[in-house]
């Protein structure tokens, strides 16, 4: 997994609450058996006038001019800000795969859905939870300033605005450690194989009907 340490990136504002994973990557793209190639179809229904199908060349598809990701000023954005409960719905990891493939490395919202939040960390994407007021402020600053960038520092757990306002955010120590170092957590867990085997032995004794 690619590590995430610090990022100074252009911000794109997606002013919606309850953005679901069906919206992030529609079901027809879930038929792929790969982890890559979802970027062109990110937010497919919101981004394009027509309906996308897997494998479609997106370069000439008609785009919806009113959708933020299509606007000139947000091209190259790496940080996406949104309203509460971002990533709700389906557990599809294709959602973070699509965000990553598109070039989004950091998400900022007042809250995230659990499964999506977890999936982000497995794919080198940092989801940052700030208060609704802080996110609101970021929305108005982003809307007002073309080329608005934020600096996200994972080791320090801070988001810094161009004017120097610093917001601190919380993140679990384990997730932080894995993301900063780009660690494969399966490898880490397998280092504890002995513990797992010992637990499994006892568990089988106390609840043999599970085995």
């Amino acid at each position: 997994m690619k590590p995430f340490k610090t990022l100074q990136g252009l911000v794109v504002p997606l002013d919606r609450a309850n953005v679901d994973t069906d919206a992030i990557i529609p079901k027809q793209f879930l038929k792929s058996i790969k982890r890559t190639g979802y970027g062109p179809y990110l937010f497919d229904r919101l981004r394009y006038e027509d309906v996308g199908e897997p494998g479609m060349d997106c370069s000439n598809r008609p785009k919806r001019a009113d959708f933020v990701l299509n606007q000139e000023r947000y091209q190259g954005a790496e940080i996406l800000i949104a309203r509460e409960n971002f990533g709700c719905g389906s557990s599809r990891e294709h959602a973070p795969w699509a965000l990553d493939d598109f070039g989004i490395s950091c998400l900022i919202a007042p809250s995230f859905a659990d499964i999506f939040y977890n999936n982000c960390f497995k794919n080198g994407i940092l989801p940052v939870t700030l208060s609704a007021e802080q996110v609101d402020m970021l929305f108005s600053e982003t809307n007002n300033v073309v080329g608005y960038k934020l600096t996200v520092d994972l080791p320090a757990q801070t988001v810094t605005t161009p004017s120097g306002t610093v917001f601190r955010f919380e993140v679990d120590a384990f997730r932080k450690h894995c993301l900063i170092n780009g660690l494969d957590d399966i490898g880490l867990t397998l280092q504890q194989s002995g513990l797992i085997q010992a637990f499994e032995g006892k568990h089988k004794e106390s609840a043999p009907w599970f085995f």
Partner: protein
Amino acid sequence: MAKTLFEKVWGDHVVTVNDDGSILLYIDRHLVHEVTSPQAFDGLRLADRKPWRVGSILATADHNVPTTGLESGITDPVSRTQVEALDENCREFGITEFPMGDIRQGILHVVGPEQGLVLPGMTVVCGDSHTSTHGAFAAIAMGIGTSEVEHVLATQCLIQKKPKVMRITVDGELAEGITGKDIALYIIGRIGTAGGTGYAIEFAGSAITSLSMEGRMTLCNMTIEAGARCGMIGVDDKTVTYIKGRPFAPTGSLWDKAEQAWRELHSDPDAKFDKEIHLQAEDIAPQVTWGTSPEMVVPVTGSTPSLDDARDEIQREGWTRALAYMELKENTAIVDIAVDKVFIGACTNARIEDFRAAARIVKGRKVAGNVKLALAVPGSGLVKQQAEAEGLDIIFKDAGFEWREPGCSMCLAMNADRLEPGERSASTSNRNFENRQGVGGRTHLVSPVMAAAAAITGHFVDIRDWR
């Protein structure tokens, strides 16, 4: 010390607590389907790893499978590739699979309990958010992403942070026609789609225990729609009776020991919860969603909201967009909304009890002229077989329903079953997101009896008035 149900099951599965506070949690049952697993199996192969315990895994294809014309197989080549990849992965790694054509094949969240593969006190995972269904059996059942599917395959564990625990108690007596689905939607309407975020939810109270196991599965299924990590209900006689005699359930003296242990799986009387919500069953009317999020829900006697009632600008914005997408005006009475298609099925409501209840409504009647398609899609081959043995298929077909083969079907429209742009459904599935049931499709979530009644009348009606 008094413990909650969640704490009891969780505590029985902690392999170790790491220095950073993360917990290695042992997983008893892993359900696998075609959409979220191929990349996980590829990951295993790339790292030259093997599944830790193949006996813990059951696989079946459900999301992509067609519900008609099974004799010609899957005609969509992309869908077919995915289902064949599952078959191939199961063969390669020695995993038990119920392939297409097997009578036991169906929606994983119907098949698991039906086979006795989900037992009280288990930890259950699946690369599908509606895994929460299995909490009806006092199991900790969580939906996970593909990376975690790979992690569980390789290590039999998940790295977890312990969630907080909320208890939602629903006391009192449900009115005739009020189902687990209505309770679920009512709760989501009250606490919102993020109301359960960071929590495991235990459902308790006389209205909950009055539900059948099917009704409890429906309720727990939709816990994820409230944002919770999982939903759970303690063990009682109904739980034990449901499991007994199922193909993978324990037998003989092992059953006796298991039952004894399961009987302890409820919260202790003095257990402390991080949050408690009390609701009254008598307050719950048949629920109908009007918008594009399950929290946009009202009683069938209600109307779409007035924008001026929004609590803030963000909600007003959300309601405005939802009303526009649904092509509904403010203050529209729910009973005035006509539907184009009706779908009875999905992991929420595709069990035998759901079809029995819906069949009672449609029996001897005909689907309304404005309803272009009414689908009844059983959750598994065995549900279909049972329904046919009871003659339910004939009742549905006589009324003008199509009686289909098992699968996820129009819940997410990955196969050919879908809404066309602008079409409106009464659907027993769990999500009314934009484009969920087909591009431009408009979904109203309801219980099976409400969907059946809407099929007959062509619009929503209060099932409590059904004669």
